[in-house]
């Protein structure tokens, strides 16, 4: 599947150009890509729901706008798909869970509204780890997503469908969500670009919560420029989300041209230690050398807390599961979604939740409930928040001397399907270089920088200070330009 493109334009940028010049219609593009999804999805399983009717209707509306010479949005005619964690009005939104199998939201997430306003074509909803909990996209009520680069391997998670759809040419751009690495890890495993914005950069309204203080919606695309364009469309303050920031949205596309000359890039020593597979290290170092060659200066930095798995992974799994245990209380069989009828209210709750949630989700609900319980709160939740503060300080200190940090996304490339399913702790360690970024709230990207000895994609993680997405994009664009295969 070296070239899955079903039309000449490889990028959203090229496609928008073609539609604006009426080289082809949105309907043509949409029909082609829907047919491609039909052909490839049985193998990849990236889509949970394909909205053919909705997509074609949107395409026709776009074509009418073009024909009428009306003002066109920045994503005019671009086929986009959404992680099934984003609410879409009238289109079922499952979170890859049995418990929301039949849930049809009556409203659009803010990012979905912005995509529609930008004249994008929404193709459907993408597979993922149930409630975004997982690192392989195998924890899905709808079956595992398979890596288009090697179908015996995982896509990474939790936004596996979002990465796989872009890699397989089933969409030019997708949205995912990143709570502990859920955009960056699958982007790395599938060889596409994936960006986790600063916490507060993108409205979470309509993003079904896993861990509210960590969740952030992020774009996937084949290129850094497309990623930048999509970020520009979805970013910005939203009065419906109190945690969305009042920070102006810059021209991210322009930032892609900026280069890295004069930037200081730090390499956290803790992220290059034991456990990092050597071919992953080689590929990452290759990316870093490109940056150096283009004028960046490279230095080592230390993240004693953020880089220490005993702190970062532990704090992450306490805070994320604590919030999740509360966020997922609403799935009780009373109002919407799956219900298992029972004689008493308490039995209905127990049976609905026992049968409606998958094993990993139940594990995390139990962990989080425990961490918040009277008598344990201080030892777990409070302690984890203190660690979180130290992690933030680690990054603050690093960004005093660096413009960016560079590291691998994960210690290994995509692993085999089923390989870590029975070993949650091994699975959790896939996120060893990514979770601290969410705890600190800073932005990060995964940009392809090479392949493993087995030919699997490897991503370079670039991290910036809060709201420094432009700097991240400028460096990622350099890596992409020099290393694009």
């Amino acid at each position, binding site marked *: 599947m070296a070239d899955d493109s079903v039309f000449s334009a490889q990028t959203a940028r090229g496609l928008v150009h073609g539609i604006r010049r009426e080289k082809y219609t949105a309907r043509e593009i949409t029909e082609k890509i829907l047919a491609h999804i039909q052909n490839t999805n049985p193998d990849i399983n990236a889509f949970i729901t394909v909205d053919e009717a909705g997509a074609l209707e949107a395409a026709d509306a776009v074509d009418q706008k073009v024909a009428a010479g009306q003002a066109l949005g920045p994503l005019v005619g671009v086929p986009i798909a959404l992680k099934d964690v984003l609410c879409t009005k009238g289109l079922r939104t499952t979170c890859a869970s049995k418990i929301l199998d039949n849930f049809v*939201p009556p409203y659009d997430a803010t990012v979905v509204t912005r995509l529609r306003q930008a004249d994008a074509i929404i193709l459907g909803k993408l597979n993922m780890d149930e409630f975004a909990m997982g690192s392989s996209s195998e924890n899905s009520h709808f079956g595992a997503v398979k890596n288009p680069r090697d179908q015996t391997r995982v896509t990474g998670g939790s936004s596996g469908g979002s990465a796989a759809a872009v890699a397989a040419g089933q969409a030019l751009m997708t949205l995912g969500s990143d709570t502990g690495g859920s955009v960056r890890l699958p982007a790395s495993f599938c060889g596409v670009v994936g960006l986790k914005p600063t916490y507060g950069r993108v409205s979470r309204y*309509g993003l079904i919560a896993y861990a509210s203080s960590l969740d952030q919606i992020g774009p996937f695309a084949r290129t850094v420029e497309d990623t930048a364009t999509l970020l520009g469309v979805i970013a910005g303050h939203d009065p419906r989300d109190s945690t969305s920031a009042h920070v102006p949205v810059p021209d991210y596309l322009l930032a892609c041209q900026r280069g890295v000359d004069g930037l200081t890039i730090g390499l956290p020593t803790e992220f290059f230690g034991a456990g990092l597979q050597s071919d992953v290290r080689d590929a990452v170092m290759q990316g870093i050398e490109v940056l150096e060659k283009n004028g960046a200066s490279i230095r080592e930095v230390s993240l004693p807390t953020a880089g220490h798995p005993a702190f970062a992974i532990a704090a992450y799994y306490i805070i994320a599961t604590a919030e999740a245990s509360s966020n997922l209380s609403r799935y009780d069989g009373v109002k919407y979604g799956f219900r298992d009828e029972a004689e008493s209210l308490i039995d209905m709750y127990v049976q609905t939740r026992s049968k409606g949630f998958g094993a990993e989700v139940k594990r995390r609900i139990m962990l989080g409930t425990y961490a918040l319980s009277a008598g344990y709160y201080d030892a777990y939740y409070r302690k984890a928040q203190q660690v979180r503060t130290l992690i933030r300080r680690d990054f603050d200190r690093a960004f005093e001397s660096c413009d960016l940090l560079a590291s691998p996304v994960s210690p290994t490339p995509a692993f085999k399907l089923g390989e870590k399913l029975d070993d949650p702790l091994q699975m959790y360690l896939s996120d060893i270089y990514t979770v601290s970024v969410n705890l600190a709230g800073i932005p990060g990207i995964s940009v392809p920088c090479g392949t493993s000895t087995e030919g699997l994609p490897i991503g370079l993680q670039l991290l910036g200070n809060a709201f420094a997405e432009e700097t991240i994009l400028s460096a990622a664009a350099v890596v992409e330009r020099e290393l694009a295969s």
Partner: protein
Amino acid sequence: MTYESVIGLEVHAQLATTTKIFCGCSAEFGADPNTHVCPVCLGLPGALPVLNQNVVEMAMRIALAAGCTIQPRSRFLRKNYFYPDLPKGYQISQFQSNEEMPLATGGGVDVPSADGGTKTIRLTRIHMEEDAGKSIHQEAFVAAGESLVDVNRCGVPLIEIVSEPDLSTSEEVFHYLTSLHQLLVYTGVSEGDMEKGHMRIDANVSIRPVGETQLGTKVEIKNVNSFRNCQRAIESEIQRQIDLLETGGEIEQATMLYDPDRNILRAMRTKEESDDYRYFPDPDLVPLVVDSAWVARVQSQIPELPEVKRVRFAEDYDISADQIDVLTADRDVADYFEAAVAAGVQSRLAANWIQGDVMRVLNDRKIAIGDLRVSAEDLAELIGLVDKGDISTSIARTVFDDMVETGDSPAAIVEKKGLVQISDTGELDGVLDQIIADNPKEVERFKGGDQKLMGFFMGQLMRATKGQANPQKASQLLREKLG
């Protein structure tokens, strides 16, 4: 042994905002079930709360009126529990712990004490929270074995006013609740409509032998909806605790529900069964930061409070203590009174009218003074007509009733109905001559010294003139004619 009781109250008051605390839905009472809802208050997946600034301002207003300190930074927490009328599976509420402050702390409310003075009931805190929905069971339209949920009330803004355990008797509790209610309504923070559940009370009650300083085991009485019921529930709980101790029993920490129809308390749950709410800061809401300028602005919007008004009325107006109580009990009534006085009526006359006829109409019709069709200015005009002798007091009552119905001015009604008092000597002469001619026996007896018959003649006169005769003028003329 003699015991004393120690009582602390948690009062939940519904704020008078037009919209809910975390979304733009109407907070109005009585709509069709599940019509005032949106993704936020329905707790739909992905929806997020946004704090209504009006709720904060109203909570600050009552807090400042009660002398509380506004915390510069406070947070909302999640109180987690499962219940069908709690769509999110948690209630968003402020909470007080070592790290998390509620909106307001400290302050106090004065109540009359047993010795005739006043006693200050200290407040622990005032915090904001959202209401839950309503479960409906056992109604005619609910099928057997089923329950229905109305989510309209979800997200209706509440404040919880928590007192220190400073209350010693059920009478003090009643006074405290009355004062709090008055303060809430005065400041416009709550409509205080008890029938709509605008105030709901939880009472923590314990007893201890007189002289003991250690607090006894407390029992919480939940969700009482009237002040009288609260008083009665506390009385019966105190008696239950005394009886228990006197018979060698031990008080168990528990939560009770009060059944006002049977005047009994029944246990809801004991300590062992108490819920672990797993409070933690709501990550969907940013900390609430209140600066001193905001506090000052809200402070400046607080109207004159009842205590201050009472003192001022006593100084400024020639009215009785009883009238001061009646007039200041309701801010709108007080304003009405002052508007009438400003329109040129003597304060005592205005007070008499308001305490009498105006309050009678308000009570009979169960309306607020704002709904009365008689403006303070028109009332002043009516009183002025009596004062000038244009109409009698009894005519004035008739005119007032007409004003209540029509909203017309008193002059217009007097004009329309031809009610101007007859003071014209010529006109009265004729009528009186006729009465004298028609009642020779009574005239004889009067002349014989039966002064009581004066009333009889005046009655005849008023009947003949439909009450329009000027009584002073008429009695003077009559005496001349019969004297």
